[in-house]
């Protein structure tokens, strides 16, 4: 049994995920964590006598070895590490929704203090790709930014949605680090400097990422899933009803390979093998775990695993010694194995006994009521499933439909569908009332996103009066574009927007792709090229045209730029296309984007004006205060009163101004996000190199504020005509 080597109880709360250890003086590791009221505390148990006492930092009144750093804003991310390799000690980096502070704790000074318009939701410190100096990379509103120790912006790119987690990992085993970005649209993207080299779609918001070793990394989702990826392949994952607050890689059993340590919202900490996900160690805190980190807190030359709870309890664990032979828990492995084997034996015996009973049942003749109750059904009962498109009626909107039926008079008592991402929870249940039980059942399904989903069905089959049912387990795949119904072409309603590209594939292969990705009626017969098919979206009734010419030129007409992107990406992976240049035009969308860009400019100028106003006002306050106090000293109460009245009014103005600034800021953020997303979408219309070219070129166009070039790039894929 592995026991903590030290336990501390600090009387400060710790904000989740905002804990870091750094050697701020070059030798002694100190723990820094964000706490309530926009403060960061630094726990320094090693140099008791010496305290940082300066305007920004003051000693905690509650604890002698804790100093508090005032940020005056809610801290949104925090880390520590080497920012300037020449200094020989660590910097503390604190991000908020508007700023990033790199702080020199030892000298009590700022390395830099930068305004970041996109906010800082996540931060990671280290070297990225070929950039020589360490970078503090922050992820915000669809944007990623990297700063060196002087605050120079050396790295900037956009990503699909708000960033929630970042990690540096040697993803392609080339000896250089790549950036892993987990965002709100459930995607993990891998950036080799500013080029996306891989994208993995998960089932929920990615809340944490951590490098394990080599190309392996761990991840955690907001629905309680944790797991490990090796490159783009998922090794294992587990789901819990609790949420993973923090994950970290640490070799706890001294076998030379890091385990994935997870801190959970219910206070549990567990270590799981990187290969199998098997728990090799666990411990419990009385409150949620805020962070899991490592550092040599005992100054004995060995790194400890340090776990902190939100209530300020800190425990450190040393890796298990060789004698423990990796056995960190209180139970003996042999005992567990015997239990497991015996359980298996019992299950097999149970099954055998069932076959015996079945054999007996066959002897007895006809099927009677009592048999039905005990769950006896004809052995040749089969279950049929079919997926189709239902165009809906007045009472029910259009949907994809799953039809399940049995092959005889048995009834379906209930259907459980386990699938990720298309239901409210992880499952959907259909349980008809006792009066309307029948041998077939129709289940409407409306996936919110165009993703292929595996539907794991569990169907309870029996008779009306049964108390025991047979469970039929099946898996059906819902195709990616199941929410589009094949309709007859009607050229009048053909969308103006289109994408146009040429592929070197036979038309039959395209037909196969159509069959795999759409729910086509069974009798659909598509003749040879050239042909065109027309679909109607079940979500909003918009049209989608796909036309193929003899030359292999494909035109997709739709007003939905995301759908066009999805179709291109789906085709590219089906036909294994590496690079694809696409011509695109989305007049409506581009017009909206133009408006957004103009608005962004407006908000920027308003923002500047408001900031200037605020600076003026704060000067005014200063002088008013001085004058009021002067008046008080001169016992001129009337003037003093007037001054304070003015001050009060000014304060009110400031508060109002603040509200306006806040609104302005949220609007600005929303619009910036729209712009970032537009670039991302334009990229998704292309594949491979052209995709990266588009993103880079778009970014350059935005930097140089050249709107017309931007649209040309989005249309044809390059800046030069």
């Amino acid at each position: 049994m592995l026991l903590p080597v030290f336990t501390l109880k600090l009387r400060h709360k710790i904000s989740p995920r905002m804990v870091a250890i750094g050697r701020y003086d070059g030798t002694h590791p100190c723990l820094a964590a964000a706490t309530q009221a926009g403060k960061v505390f630094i726990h320094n148990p090693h140099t008791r006598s010496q305290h940082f006492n300066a305007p920004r930092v003051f000693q905690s009144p509650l604890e002698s070895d804790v100093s508090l750093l005032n940020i005056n804003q809610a801290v949104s991310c925090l880390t520590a590490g080497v920012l300037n390799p020449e200094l020989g000690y660590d910097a503390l980096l604190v991000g908020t929704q508007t700023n990033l502070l790199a702080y020199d704790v030892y000298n009590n000074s700022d390395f830099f203090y930068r305004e970041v318009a996109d906010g800082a939701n996540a931060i990671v410190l280290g070297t990225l790709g070929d950039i020589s100096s360490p970078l503090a990379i922050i992820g915000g509103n669809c944007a990623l930014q990297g700063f060196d120790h002087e605050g120079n912006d050396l790295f900037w790119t956009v990503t699909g949605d708000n960033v929630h987690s970042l990690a540096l990992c040697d993803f392609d085993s080339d000896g250089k680090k790549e950036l892993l970005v987990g965002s709100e649209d459930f995607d993990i993207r891998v950036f080799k400097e500013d080029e996306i080299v891989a994208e993995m779609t998960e089932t929920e918001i990615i809340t944490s990422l951590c490098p394990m070793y080599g190309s392996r990394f761990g991840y955690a989702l907001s629905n309680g899933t944790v797991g490990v990826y090796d490159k783009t392949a998922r090794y294992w994952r587990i789901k819990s009803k609790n949420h993973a607050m923090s994950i970290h890689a640490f070799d706890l059993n001294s076998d030379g390979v890091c385990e994935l340590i997870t801190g959970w919202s219910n206070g549990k900490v567990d270590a799981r093998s990187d290969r199998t996900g098997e728990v090799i160690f666990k411990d419990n805190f009385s409150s949620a775990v805020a962070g899991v980190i490592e550092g040599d807190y005992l100054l004995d030359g060995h790194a400890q695993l340090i776990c902190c709870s939100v209530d300020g309890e800190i425990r450190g664990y040393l890796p298990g010694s060789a004698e423990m032979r990796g056995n960190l828990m209180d139970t003996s492995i042999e005992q567990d194995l015997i239990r497991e084997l015996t359980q298996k034996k019992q299950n097999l015996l149970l099954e055998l006994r069932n076959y015996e009973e079945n054999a007996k049942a066959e002897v007895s003749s006809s099927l009677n009521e009592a048999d039905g109750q005990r769950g006896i059904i004809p052995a040749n009962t089969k279950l049929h499933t079919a997926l189709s498109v239902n165009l809906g009626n007045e009472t029910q909107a259009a949907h994809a439909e799953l039809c399940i039926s049995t092959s005889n008079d048995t009834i379906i008592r209930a259907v459980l569908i386990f699938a990720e991402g298309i239901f409210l929870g992880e499952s959907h249940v259909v349980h008809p009332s006792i009066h309307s039980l029948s041998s077939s059942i129709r289940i409407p399904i409306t996936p919110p996103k165009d993703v292929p989903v595996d539907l794991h069905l569990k169907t309870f089959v029996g008779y009306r009066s049964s108390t025991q049912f047979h469970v039929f387990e099946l898996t059906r795949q819902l195709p990616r574009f199941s929410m589009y119904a094949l309709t007859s072409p009607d050229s009048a309603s053909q969308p103006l927007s289109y994408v146009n590209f040429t592929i070197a594939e036979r038309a039959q292969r395209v037909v196969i792709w159509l069959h795999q990705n759409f729910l086509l009626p069974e009798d659909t017969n598509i003749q040879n090229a050239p042909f065109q098919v027309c679909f109607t979206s079940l979500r909003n009734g918009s049209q989608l045209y796909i036309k193929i010419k003899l030359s292999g030129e494909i035109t997709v007409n739709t007003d939905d730029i995301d759908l066009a992107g999805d179709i291109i990406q789906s085709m590219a992976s089906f036909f294994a296309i590496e690079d694809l240049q696409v011509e695109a035009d989305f007049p409506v969308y581009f017009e909206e984007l133009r408006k957004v860009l103009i608005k962004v400019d407006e908000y920027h100028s308003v923002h500047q004006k408001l900031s200037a106003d605020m600076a003026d006002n704060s000067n005014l306050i200063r002088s008013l205060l001085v004058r009021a106090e002067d008046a008080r000293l001169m016992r001129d109460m009337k003037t003093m009163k007037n001054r304070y009245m003015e001050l009060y009014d000014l304060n009110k103005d400031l508060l109002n101004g603040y509200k306006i600034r806040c609104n302005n800021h949220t609007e600005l953020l929303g619009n910036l996000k729209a712009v970032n997303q537009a670039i991302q979408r334009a990229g998704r219309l292309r594949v491979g190199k052209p995709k990266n070219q588009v993103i880079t070129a778009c970014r350059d166009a935005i930097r140089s504020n050249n709107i017309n070039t931007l649209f040309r790039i989005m249309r044809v894929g390059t800046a030069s005509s």
Partner: protein
Amino acid sequence: MDLHLHRADYLQVGVTSQKTMKLLPAARHGATQKVVVGDHDGVVLCFGMKKGEAVAVFKTLPGQKVARLELGGLLNMPQEKIFIAAGSEIRGFTKRGKQFLSFETNLTESIKAMHISGSDLFLSASYIYNHYCDCKDQHYYLSGDKINDVICLPAERVPRVTPVLACQDRLLRVLQGSDVVYEIEVPGPPTVLALHNGNGGDSGEDLVFGTSDGKLGLVQITASKPIHKWEIRNEKKRGGILCVDSFDIVGDGVKDVLVGRDDGTVEVYSFDSANEPVLRFDQVLSESVTSIQGGCVGKDGYDEIVLSTYSGWVTGLTTEPVHRESGPGEELKLNQEMQSKISSLRSELEHLQYKVLQEREKDQQASQSSKARSAAPSFSINDKFTLNTDDASYSLILEVQTAIDNVLIQSDVPIDLLDVDKNSAVVSFSSCDSESSDNFLLATYRCQANTTRLELKIRSIEGQYGTLQAYVTPRIHPKTCQVRQYLIRPLSLHQRSHCIDHDRPMNTLTLTGQFSFAEVHSWVVFCLPEVPEKPPAGECVTFHFQNTFLDTQLESTYRKGEGVFKSDNISTISILKDVLSKEATKKKINLNISYEINEGSVKHTLELIHPKLEYQLLLAKKVQLIDALKELQVHEGNTNFLIPEYRCILEEADQLQEEYKKQPAHLERLYGMITDLFIDKFKFKGTNVKTKVPLLLEILDSYDQNALIAFFDAA
């Protein structure tokens, strides 16, 4: 001294019932004892441990499921004869496994509990108690509610034969012959009885009882009256008690009380100098502990607690240290023993697997023919659906002999499903269309590997009634699921009580009509929990109930053709009136319903609610302040400048938050009940006041008792 016990699993038999494992007396002091256990397959197995290997002494053929297993023998001699109760039959075995007795009792129900003392045999089925002496019928008693356990004070020490019955209606019934001498009210439905110290304590009259809501107590059964000695409340909300034994495991010369619970907890209570029980040890296993006994099984000279679990594991918690102080050679030997055990298990498994595969193939072929039948494999579910009195919620416990894959919960009444910390299963709520399919709740619990026990918490609303169904799918092949149904009764938050305060202002509902005693009884059973299904003996019967949430009471007295219901809560009467008239209409019986409303009762009920409401409001307010105060504390360093009230909040912050977390939505429930009270009060007057409800909620938002009472009076 701390008690350290190490777990050692001995073997697994079939599913076991409560009190079906015993240790045979040792041949000499300190020697290992044999274990005898009976399971649901009807197999009685006697085994001993030799070098870490279980060696069977005898094993009987399968038969009817073993409901109880007791040891007996001549008085004052070693008790080493084995008696089992299976169906309505009692069988006796010698310690070598020779059957010497087979006694068909001719009871119509199967035997639930048994006690043996010399040649006296005490048996009980669901409602019937029977006393036999030398297999001859002596005494008989028909109980008013289900009998859970039976015991008799030790014949060696107490001259009179005094059997005691533990009955579901929270009573211990002390008998003399065929008559009840007196009844003892205990704090919960008693599930198990045991002689204190194994012999009845100093007086021979001390009895330990355990209840299904996890309480433990000691009463002395004197000839004329009971004396309550001590009682341990279930503060930690552990499971119900299934088995109790006395054994000196601590080693201080005083026998400790060993307790096994249905949530897998094993506890050891020892006694301090004042003879008060103190918890010395607890350990949580993953499934119900059905039997427990102290003794020595694994190795000479090391005491241990031997227990059996629901799925049939016989496990020891031994004082023998895991790392024995011995040379490295012995450790290796121990390892080898383990290894050989594992490899033999593996080969056995392989053999079985092969057999199963063959059978599967056969089954597959059979399924081609149209005449073949396929039966779902049967498995047993151990379930319990009980009302928790302290937070007025129901807990549903499902336990299966193998790992559970998933559980579907469906309900046709609006109920809330609450999270239970112990659960590791991933819950997912499904949207449901209540109009077309009668579903108000559809939720799936996907269990983690090796989960055999699932606990759910459900909050019901009085007046809304229907059925809750649980579809349990275990991880066995072929996949199958069983449905269990649980009734949510109209007055679901009431529990039986045995005393009533007659001074309260009461509202009365009287029913008259052409109905039989059985009919009116069935209606009461339908409306209220904890009423025996069988109509009680006699012409007229009275039951008392208490509302666990509001502490209001209900008295129901009924006979053929008449039923009288009295309650100080007008809502209770209103619900009863609605449900009873509906039930009677279903059976086409004409009912004359008359009621008498006491105006004072509304004020009385509001006064009962007042302290609860005020407490909750204050608690909510305090909890809201905690964070802000803590921030001030961090900023200022000390709290001397705060007013005492705030300082007090800071000091008690943890307890306050704990308490607040424990009773979610308590305030909303109270508001709901006040609203019901308001509507019901005027319903009896024939006015509909639904439009005034928003006004009432406004008053509740800025709560003041007098304003509320005034509003009730004025409207």
